[in-house]
């Protein structure tokens, strides 16, 4: 077998081994590459910045599962830090049955982090006053539409079994009129439902945080203004973390920064293999072996 045939037909297991090594490497070798903030991430950040404190709430639909936790969880935490630091009430909910566990983890871990830094009682986060988690509901589209009339009609009780009407925050949040924006964090294209149904009918603003593989599907909606901001994959999460840190809403970066380094290494590896494959293909074709 000639050298060019060899590099054009590398065993996939070799690719797998190299990929594993390069994913793990950045966990031990810390490198920080300055991020350039993409306009769609900046747009979401600016929107949250424009919401007056203690006014309308931000609704976060936690619709990602453990599989996409590395990409979506840092987005959720950075967004929550931003909202809590600016005294913006947060209403959480889920339509993916696997999401509640992660939603609770994100909400509680951010709450504990802020509480550990709070010097006054007013600075700490209180469940039912600063945020509420409604839990999971079947019949996604019907539920989204019905919340336009009354959130309590769809979620009479929260995730922990409390009556919605008994929570102080929910006295001021009745339906989409009291929601400044809905941010959907997902690995599937759940945001399209929010655009098609509640946005068309009730005019609710929609933004999203999606896995990198899903995000390009929402570029057309970003351009038309139907999506008011977008975090795209690990990069979007790292950018939002950076914005939150730079504006003094957090003390340190989250986990997306390290993830970005692993991702960059994989991109480089994939590019290297594509080049090798093409060099092999080019020389094989010159030798008259490869089909044109």
């Amino acid at each position, binding site marked *: 077998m000639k050298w060019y045939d060899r590099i054009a037909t590398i065993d996939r297991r070799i690719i797998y081994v190299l990929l594993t090594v390069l994913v793990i490497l950045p966990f031990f070798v810390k490198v920080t590459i300055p991020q350039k903030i993409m306009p769609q991430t900046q747009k979401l950040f600016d929107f949250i910045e424009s919401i007056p404190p203690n006014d309308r709430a931000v609704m976060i639909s936690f619709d990602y599962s453990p599989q996409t936790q590395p990409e979506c969880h840092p987005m959720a935490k950075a967004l929550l830090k931003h909202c809590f630091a600016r005294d913006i009430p947060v209403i959480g909910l889920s339509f993916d*049955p*696997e999401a509640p566990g992660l939603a609770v983890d994100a909400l509680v871990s951010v709450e504990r982090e802020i509480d550990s830094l709070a010097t006054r009682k007013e600075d700490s986060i209180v469940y039912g006053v600063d945020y509420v988690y409604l839990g999971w509901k079947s019949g996604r589209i019907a539920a989204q539409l019905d919340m336009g009339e009354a959130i309590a009609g769809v979620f009479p009780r929260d995730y922990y079994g409390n009556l919605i009407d008994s929570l102080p925050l929910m006295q001021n949040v009745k339906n989409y009129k009291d929601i400044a924006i809905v941010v959907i964090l997902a690995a599937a294209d759940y945001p399209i439902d929010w655009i098609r149904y509640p946005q068309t009918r009730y005019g609710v603003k929609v933004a999203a945080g999606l896995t990198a593989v899903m995000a390009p599907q929402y570029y057309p909606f970003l351009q038309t203004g139907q999506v008011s901001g977008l975090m795209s994959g690990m990069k979007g999460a790292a950018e939002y973390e950076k914005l939150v840190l730079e504006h003094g809403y957090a003390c340190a970066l989250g986990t997306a920064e390290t993830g970005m380094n692993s991702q960059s290494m994989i991109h480089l590896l994939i590019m290297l293999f594509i080049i090798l494959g093409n060099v092999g293909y080019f020389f094989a074709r010159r030798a008259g072996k490869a089909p044109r």
Partner: protein
Amino acid sequence: MRVLTLLMFLAHCLPVPLSPCLIVSLSPRLPVSPSPGAPAVVSAFDRPNDAGSVIQLRWSLSPDDASIDGYAVLRRARDDTAYTKIGSTMRGVTVFEDEGVQDGVPYEYIVASLRDGAMFHSEPSAPAMSYPQFFHKGRINVLLCIVAFTLLLAYFVVKARTGKDLFIRKIAGLAAVEEAVGRATEMGKPILYVPGLGDIDWTATIASMNILGEVARKIARYDSALIVPNRWSVTYTVSKEVVKEAFVAEGSPDKFKEEYVRYVTEAQFGFAAAINGIMTREKPATNFFIGRFWAESLIMAETGAQTGAFQIAGTDSVLQLPFFVSACDYTLMGEELYAASAYLSREPVLLGSLKAQDYGKLAVLLVLFGISLTSFFGVNLLPVLRVQ
């Protein structure tokens, strides 16, 4: 000062006004007047196209808008003697929606400029009443499109019923369905049909159910085995009925087995893991991936390719198409998925509906082209079309 005046003059002569910040930076600092002017014209009216209980207010800015704290909105019902404050806005705002009114009761409004807690009132508005509407005028464009498309559909369906031969181009992925089912029968192995990961409210899932009906009929004819795993409980119940009905329609209800259609899990990647398990353990001869797919598409299609199965995919998920194209033998792209049922059944009525689809698309393309062309010459037609 002369330079400043000249610049202000030039600013007025420019075809495009200078940005407000530039003008502000050129203006000398205005002294704050002792009592700010109130907003001039306050108009109140029922908010259109709603369920009632809302009155909209508009006013013109106070001449001292830059130096006030904001605006207060006061309301008086017909029987009230005094005005009550119902809300406030920031300065620079000229609209307000009063959402707590009673339908059929006339209300008058006053808008006041606020400075240091003091209010400087406008003249009262004319009385306004809210009431619910029976038709949403903002959606006339949608209604017209639905009616036009339904008429187009009806026209081609009627035309097809008269026996006119309608041409449909060859769709390689669908032409291979017969071969795929035959191959599985010859090999004595089952056929795996994954109806996507979308719930029944995705049109792609509904289209997939239509194709499943046709595929199941062929399977009933060929006497092959079928596996239909489902992610959602409702798609499970629907796909079970579809397969059962297909076997009944082919006159062999006894060949249908309950185990053909299975519910797996709602977990996205748990479902993908289960499909990979089925492919590696039961080694289906043919895999159909038809419906809505997300990031798991390549995991399933690549595993299927490794087991040596003949694979036909079909999805309207634009981002998953490249993955299916690289790992499957045939891929139905975008709207081909919606043409599949007509293609497989060859029913004239369904073929007629495809024709309507094509003409509808042509009409939209012409409209889009027209709007793009006019906007190229600086004419914006979107407000005329009431595009919201």
